[in-house]
C-alpha cells in the first residue's frame, strides 16, 4: 500500500467507503500516516503549572507523558522504558522529580533524558546516556493548547492549525489571564471509529434535529439554540479542520454575542454576568469580527474537538478500527471565581460527557455507524456525503470555505484531506 494511490473517498468527497470506519488494514495505515505524523492534542498548559507536573496521555495508541521540566519547558515522551518497555509513569497526573522503571530501575528526568540506572558504573561503563532517553515527541503550544507530533521535521503547529487559529481564538484569547482547565478528565470507551466524533463536530449541524430531539422536546431553550445554529455556517478549514459556527453582523445585540449557551446564561444568572463582564476585554483583544464569530462545535484534524459554547475540549484516542477512548475537559477563564466555574461544570454535565443528555445520543450514533461499516456486501456501497454540493465560497470577513448549516462541505473536505495523508509515503 506504499506508493499505490488508494481511493476510499471520491474526488469530490461526496462518496466515502464504509470500510474506513472498520477495516483493520486501513487503521494500520492510519497509525503510520496520521497518528505518527500529525500534530495531536496532548493537554492544556494549565495542567502543568509547576516544574515536575506531568500528565499521562496518548498519541494514537502510544502512551505519552507530558511534563514541565526544571528549565520551564514542556516535554512529551513515550512512556516506555528504553531497556524493557515498561511504563515509567503509572499515574494519570501528578508531580514528580523523575520517572523510574519498576523493573530494573532505569531512571529518567522530567525532560525524558536518561539520568541513570542501578549499577551504571559497573554494568554500563560505555553507555551514552544521551542516546537512551525516552523517545521524544516534538511539542508545540498554541494559546495554552499543548500539541505533540512524532514528525520532527514536518510543518510547524501554526502551519498545521492554519486558519483554525481564528476560530480557536474566539474561546482561548478573550482575556489577559487566559484559560485553565478544571482539574480532572472524563474518560470513557465507545465502540466507535475515531473519525466519527471528528466528522460530527467538523460540520454536522444536520444530525441535531433527529439525534437530539429528546432534549429539544424537554427544553425549549435548547431548541432555540439549535434554531440559531441553523442560521450559521458549516465551515471547512484547510487541513481537514472545520467548524459549526455562527457569524453575526455588525450591530448585533450584545447578548447574542456572549460565548455561552443562552439556556445556561438564564439558568445561572451569575455565569451570565461573569461572561458579560468579560466582553469589553474580549472585544479589545479579539476585535469586532472575531467577537461576532461564535463556534458551537469544531474539529482540529485529526481527533481534537472543541465545544466552545459549553467550554469543553475533547479528544478521541483511537483504540483499533472499531473503538475509541473519549476524553473530555472543561476549560474556563482563569480569573473567574470558583462559583462561576462550578456553574459551567454543572451546566456541562447535563448536556455533555458520558452522562450528558446530548452526548449520549451522539455516541450511540457513532457506535451504530461503526457497526454499519462491516460486511462484505454492504461495504461495496459507500456513504453519502453529498448534501449541499457546490457549497464552499470564501467569506469576506471570516476564513475558510463557507457553506450554510445544511451541507456536508466540512466532512467532504476532512475526508479528502484524510485520503491525501493516507496516500503519502510512510
Amino acid at each position, binding site marked *: 500500500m506504499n506508493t499505490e494511490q488508494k481511493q476510499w473517498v471520491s474526488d469530490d468527497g461526496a462518496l466515502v467507503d464504509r470500510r474506513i470506519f472498520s477495516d483493520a488494514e486501513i487503521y494500520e495505515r492510519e497509525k503510520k500516516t496520521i497518528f505518527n505524523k500529525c500534530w495531536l492534542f496532548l493537554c492544556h498548559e494549565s495542567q502543568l503549572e509547576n516544574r515536575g507536573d506531568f500528565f499521562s496521555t496518548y498519541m494514537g495508541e502510544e502512551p505519552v507523558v507530558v511534563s514541565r521540566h526544571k528549565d520551564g519547558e514542556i516535554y512529551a515522551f513515550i512512556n516506555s522504558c528504553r531497556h524493557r518497555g515498561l511504563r515509567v509513569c503509572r499515574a494519570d*497526573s501528578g508531580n514528580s522529580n523523575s520517572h523510574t522503571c519498576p523493573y530494573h530501575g532505569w531512571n529518567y528526568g522530567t525532560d525524558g533524558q536518561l539520568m541513570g540506572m542501578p549499577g551504571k558504573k559497573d554494568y554500563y561503563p560505555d553507555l551514552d546516556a544521551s542516546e537512551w532517553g525516552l523517545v521524544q515527541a516534538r511539542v508545540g503550544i498554541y494559546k495554552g493548547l499543548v500539541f505533540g507530533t512524532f514528525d520532527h521535521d514536518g510543518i510547524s503547529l501554526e502551519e498545521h492549525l492554519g486558519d483554525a487559529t481564528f476560530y480557536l481564538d474566539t474561546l482561548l484569547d478573550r482575556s489577559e489571564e487566559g484559560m485553565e482547565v*478544571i482539574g480532572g478528565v472524563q474518560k*470513557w470507551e465507545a465502540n466507535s471509529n475515531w473519525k466519527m466524533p471528528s466528522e460530527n463536530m467538523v460540520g454536522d449541524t444536520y444530525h441535531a434535529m433527529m439525534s437530539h430531539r429528546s432534549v429539544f422536546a*424537554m427544553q425549549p431553550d435548547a431548541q432555540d439554540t439549535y434554531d440559531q445554529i441553523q442560521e450559521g455556517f458549516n465551515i471547512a478549514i484547510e487541513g481537514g479542520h472545520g467548524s459549526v459556527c455562527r457569524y453575526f453582523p455588525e450591530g448585533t445585540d450584545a447578548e447574542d454575542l456572549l460565548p455561552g449557551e443562552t439556556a445556561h446564561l438564564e439558568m445561572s444568572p451569575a455565569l451570565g454576568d461573569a461572561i458579560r463582564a468579560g466582553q469589553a476585554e474580549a472585544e479589545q483583544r479579539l476585535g469586532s469580527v472575531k467577537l461576532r464569530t461564535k463556534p458551537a462545535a469544531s474539529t482540529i484534524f485529526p481527533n481534537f474537538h472543541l465545544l466552545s459554547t459549553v467550554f469543553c475540549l475533547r479528544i478521541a484516542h483511537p483504540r483499533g478500527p472499531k473503538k475509541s477512548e473519549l476524553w473530555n475537559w472543561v476549560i474556563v477563564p482563569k480569573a473567574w471565581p470558583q462559583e462561576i466555574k462550578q456553574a459551567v461544570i454543572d451546566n456541562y454535565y447535563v448536556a455533555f460527557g458520558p452522562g450528558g443528555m446530548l452526548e*449520549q445520543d451522539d455516541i450511540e450514533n457513532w457506535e451504530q455507524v461503526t457497526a454499519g461499516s462491516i460486511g462484505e456486501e454492504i461495504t461495496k456501497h459507500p456513504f453519502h456525503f453529498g448534501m449541499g454540493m457546490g457549497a464552499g465560497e470564501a467569506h469576506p470577513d471570516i476564513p475558510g470555505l463557507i457553506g450554510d448549516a445544511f451541507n456536508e462541505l466540512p466532512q467532504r473536505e476532512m475526508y479528502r484531506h484524510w485520503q491525501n495523508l493516507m496516500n503519502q509515503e510512510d
Partner: protein
Amino acid sequence: MSSNTMVSLEEQREIEQFLYREARVLDERKFNDWLGMLDGGIRYYMPNRKVRKPKSRSDEWDVEDEISGDGELGLLSDNILTLSMRATRLMDGLSFSENPMSRTVRMISNIEVQAGEEEGSYKVYSNFHLNRKRLEKDNCDIYGSRQDIIVREDGELLLEERRIVLNATVLNFPSISLFF
C-alpha cells in the same frame, strides 16, 4: 461501630428493603416510582476517579485521594429537576441511546446502615453490580459503591443524597444513561 451510630435490626431491615425495592423499580423501568422515592432536595452525584502516584513511601492509599472533590470535574451532578429530565427522556422514546431500552439487573450488596447526623436520617453504604444489556448483544458490567443519606419524612423513607463511585477510571461503557 460505635454505639451512637448503631441502628436497630428493624431499621437495618427497613433500609435494606428500601434499597432492594429501589433496584427493582429501576430494573422494571418504573422511573416515576423511582422519582417518588427521592427527597425533593436530593443531591445525586458521581465523582470521577483517577490513578494517582503515592504521596510518599508510607502512603496509606486512602481511596478518597483518588476521587474528585469540590471544584474538580466529576461525571454527574444532579438535582431533582435534572433527574426528572433524565427520567422523562428515558420514557419519551425520543432518545435512541435508550430506545429500545437497556435491560438491566442490579445487585445491591454490602449494605451497612448507620444512624445519620440528623434525627431520623441514616448514612448507608452499599456496593452495586449493574449488568446492562441492550439491543441484540451489547453487554457491560458496571461495579461501584454508594454512600447514601436516607431520611424519614412522615414515616416514609426517601433518598436525600447519593454519592456513586465507580471502580473504573476509564468507563467501560458509552454513556451514563441509567440510574445507579
